[in-house]
């Protein structure tokens, strides 16, 4: 009965896949050789790793707007999540998990700091470091060591927006176009922005988890 429609869908999907493969193979070569352009300007960017140079110097706008989008997403989640009267961590949690979380959380923070620092000259950077920080927070929450965030404390709110404000401040202080760093200060400014971003993005990513947890406990 259902075999014929399924066969039709399968044939359609195969045709679509063939068309996609064909289109990708037929792509014209890029007009500008971007890797060469990045390599030529790497010396002026203030960092030695090309990915970090692109993300925070050459295409800083994209990163700035990405952070703004993540912040808006968190604001939406916090607005939707209803606050609970009591939001204590559950005390029926597993003691083995709690001990493991207590041991792992400092290591995760240390690894996040390393990734942040490594972003200047090797793979790493603010987003990856922030994801580790958020992982540590989620682990502590799952182990029952952290309360949910039905109504974030003002320190948390400040931490969530700090990275974006540091980024905007550096962008506004630059002379000439927005987000054009003076080459001699570029390395320090990028590290400053990345440190702020690591903290804020870590809190934002963790907040997406913790605000939902609060929402579930309320309902």
């Amino acid at each position: 009965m259902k075999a014929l429609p399924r066969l039709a869908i399968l044939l359609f999907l195969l045709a679509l896949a063939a068309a996609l493969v064909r289109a990708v193979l037929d792509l014209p070569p890029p007009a500008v050789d971007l890797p060469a352009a990045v390599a030529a300007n790497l010396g002026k960017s203030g960092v030695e790793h090309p990915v970090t140079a692109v993300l925070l110097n050459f295409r800083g706008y994209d990163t700035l707007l990405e952070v703004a989008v993540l912040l808006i997403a968190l604001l939406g989640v916090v607005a939707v999540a209803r606050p609970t009267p009591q939001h204590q961590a559950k005390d029926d949690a597993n003691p083995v998990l709690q001990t493991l979380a207590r041991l792992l959380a400092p290591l995760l923070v240390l690894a996040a700091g390393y990734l942040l620092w490594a972003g200047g000259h090797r793979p790493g950077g603010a987003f990856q470091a922030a994801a580790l920080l958020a992982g540590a927070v989620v682990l502590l929450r799952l182990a029952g060591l952290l309360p949910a965030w039905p109504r974030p404390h003002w320190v948390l709110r400040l931490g969530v927006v700090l990275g974006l404000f540091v980024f905007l401040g550096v962008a506004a202080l630059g002379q000439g176009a927005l987000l054009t760093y003076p080459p001699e200060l570029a390395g320090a400014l990028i590290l400053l922005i990345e440190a702020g971003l690591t903290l804020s993005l870590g809190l934002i990513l963790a907040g997406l988890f913790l605000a939902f947890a609060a929402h579930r406990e309320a309902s």
Partner: protein
Amino acid sequence: MTLVFDALLALALLVSAWRALAAPEPGRAVVLFILFGLLLSLAWARLSAPDIALAEAAIGAGLTGALLLDALRGGRGGR
């Protein structure tokens, strides 16, 4: 040798993606999705894009997996 590894990796990606989509129960689908994310980060590493591999492992597999597991638990217990 690396070719064999790459071929196995590509095959495992396709199989885990299909199994995650076709899994009958949500719990199995979430675990398969996390497995898919980890395999995908391996694939990024093989494509010599370690930055994306790190981000995929931490955000794609780790945080998204935790969110999905949490949603799963909430969907069962909350209603």
